[in-house]
């Protein structure tokens, strides 16, 4: 590794003890070494191993390298039993201790994070929940640890939606699961195709496309009550619904005028408004962070590329120029990156384009990668890909530093949608 240092030696005038300032301009960014010690628990066997869940959460983020239990020299449960020197020898930078107790019919997790190098406690928090929420307790702790050490809000407590096709497309399911793929729950089952699930910003509802009426129609469904409402019933294509950041509108695609165009639907009034007017195909809308514009895929230039339309003025601007195929864009929560499907050397990959510079980074190297969905903290994104001939979900960090496949499901899995914070 090439390391170049710029050094500045500054001597302040007229003092006997010279003030020297040394400038450090480069570093090495390794995953943080953390040890999640198995938590203290006095009761019987538990359904979940909380410390293991936290270790897995942190490892999957790519920012941590948790120490294996078998390499630990001790399993302390309280500060008095912590010998910093031992942990330091193991190369550990942070140490997470926890105690689970059963108080008032609820599980109460108290966790403490220690900075091994600075030899001090940096976090202590208590959280409680019922038996079904044991995983939530672990994800909560993961979020807090992640945020403290990385300076970025954790997204381990979030969920995702995806479509599962069973028996060779004979049965379709709309599924809800934790962001790590666990605790999956079926929201809807249909013999006709289900497509394009999308979260409402408050996390209570989902919009999707169902073919149950014989042609594509957009539905809205409340997650908790399973209450459904059909929003569109036009001739032709009714697709790709995406909620606006303020939750009052949907952006969607309708082909009732002859070819696919982007529309917005005001959910309170039910009024549709046409956004694009072009003889080419305009599809796959996605809102800008401020909700004032929509990015979409269009082949108006001959090949599919990403464009952005400003809603107030109707002005359209092309965003992508690299490559002959860029589609299904999503904007990162900080508004700085555009994540999309990018054809590179004839293969479909997920790529991120820097909004300011236009630089493209190809994030994945598998084939047929599609439907990228960014985590609400902007650190990871989930996408659909093929593995051993089957549709699966995979995740990659936005700096491409870490990739992993989510647990395999029984059917073909596609179109993941990462939930917002709610």
């Amino acid at each position: 590794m090439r390391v170049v240092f710029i050094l500045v030696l500054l001597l302040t005038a007229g003092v006997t003890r010279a003030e020297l300032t040394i400038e450090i301009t480069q570093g090495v960014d390794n995953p943080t070494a953390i040890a999640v010690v198995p938590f203290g628990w006095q009761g019987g066997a538990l359904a979940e191993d909380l410390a293991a869940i936290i270790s897995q959460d942190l490892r999957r983020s790519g920012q941590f390298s948790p120490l294996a239990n078998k390499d630990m020299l001790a399993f302390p449960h309280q500060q008095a039993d912590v010998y910093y020197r031992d942990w330091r020898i193991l190369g550990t930078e942070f140490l997470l201790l926890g105690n689970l107790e059963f108080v008032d019919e609820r599980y109460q997790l108290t966790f403490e994070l220690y900075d091994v190098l600075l030899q001090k406690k940096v976090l202590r928090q208590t959280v409680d929940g019922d038996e079904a929420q044991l995983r939530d307790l672990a994800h909560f702790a993961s979020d807090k640890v992640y945020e403290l050490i990385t300076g970025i809000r954790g997204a381990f407590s979030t969920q995702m939606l995806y479509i599962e096709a069973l028996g060779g497309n004979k049965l379709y399911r709309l599924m809800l699961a934790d962001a790590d793929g666990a605790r999956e729950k079926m929201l809807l089952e249909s013999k006709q195709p289900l497509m394009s699930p999308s979260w409402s910003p408050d996390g209570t509802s989902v919009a999707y496309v169902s073919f149950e009426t014989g042609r594509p129609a957009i539905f809205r469904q409340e997650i908790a009550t399973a209450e459904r409402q059909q929003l569109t019933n036009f001739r032709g294509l009714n697709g790709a619904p995406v909620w606006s950041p303020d939750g009052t509108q949907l952006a969607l695609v309708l082909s009732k005028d002859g070819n696919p165009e982007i529309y917005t639907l005001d959910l309170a009034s039910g009024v549709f408004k046409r956004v694009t007017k072009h003889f080419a195909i305009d599809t796959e809308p996605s809102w800008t962070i401020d909700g004032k514009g929509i990015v979409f895929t269009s082949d108006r230039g001959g090949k599919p590329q990403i464009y952005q339309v400003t809603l107030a003025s109707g002005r359209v601007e092309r965003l992508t120029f690299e490559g002959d195929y860029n589609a299904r864009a999503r904007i990162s929560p900080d508004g700085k990156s555009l994540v999309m499907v990018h054809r590179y050397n004839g293969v479909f990959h997920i790529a991120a384009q820097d909004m300011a510079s236009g630089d493209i980074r190809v994030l994945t190297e598998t084939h047929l990668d599609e439907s990228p969905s960014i985590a609400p903290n902007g650190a990871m994104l989930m996408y659909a890909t093929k593995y051993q001939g089957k549709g699966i979900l995979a995740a990659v960090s936005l700096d491409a530093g870490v990739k992993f496949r989510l647990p395999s499901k029984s059917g073909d899995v596609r179109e993941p949608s990462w939930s917002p914070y709610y």
Partner: protein
Amino acid sequence: MTVSAVSARSSISPSASAGGSYGWPIAISLALHACVLAAVAWGWESAPVDTHKVTPRYVEAKLVTMKPKSSKPAAAKKKVRTIDLAAKKREQQRQKDQRIKKQRKQQQAKDAAARKAKKLAQEQAIAAEERLAAERLAQKKLAEQQREVDNKRQRQEAFADALAAEDELLLAEQDEVAAQSYVANIAQAIGRNWSRPPSARRGMTCELQLQLIPTGEVVSVSVSKGSGNGAFDRSAEQAVKKLGRFEFLADMPPALFERYFRQFTLLFDPQDLRL
């Protein structure tokens, strides 16, 4: 002060060139130039250049061989900076003694010359008592000789002073070069241990105050100026703690350690981040 004079000049001169009559502007311009020159001359004399900002290239720093400070230059340096080392005091005393001896020798030479001149004058007086004019001439000649001797002595002293000043400058430079090579090593060692959090961005800076003991061990670290990002500041602190000790500082000349490395500041200013 110098700076303000220069800026005043630059703000006025355009108006002078724009005006129709050149008499006044030229006069003002000349007066201001004179002021600037005077200010510069005054500024240079009164403010010694004590702040050195050196940005060596990494390779340059690596190539330097470290010379232990010899006792002679240490004495010369002593004149400006007070470093409480007995050896230096002794050295200074020795030099002082030498200088007194030298002065005494010069005085003797002067005395001898004076005696010789006087004797010559007396002889001349005896040889030509009536020729007063000739005597006056001899007196004048004597005075000239005296002046010559004086001048020579002054020149010698000035030369010795200049030599000492040059020695001192050379030594300060040597010291700095030696310090630089250590600085490079310190920056490298810290950089190897600095793992930034993903929220770190270019433009974030954090200053740490370090205190060391001569073994190179860091005995105290504190954040003197934070970046506003707790995770970033902690990563800097951890980099120092992870290293714990600058082993290569242990064989450093003690004076150099005291002067630069007993206490110093680390400025973390990442330039290699993508964002």
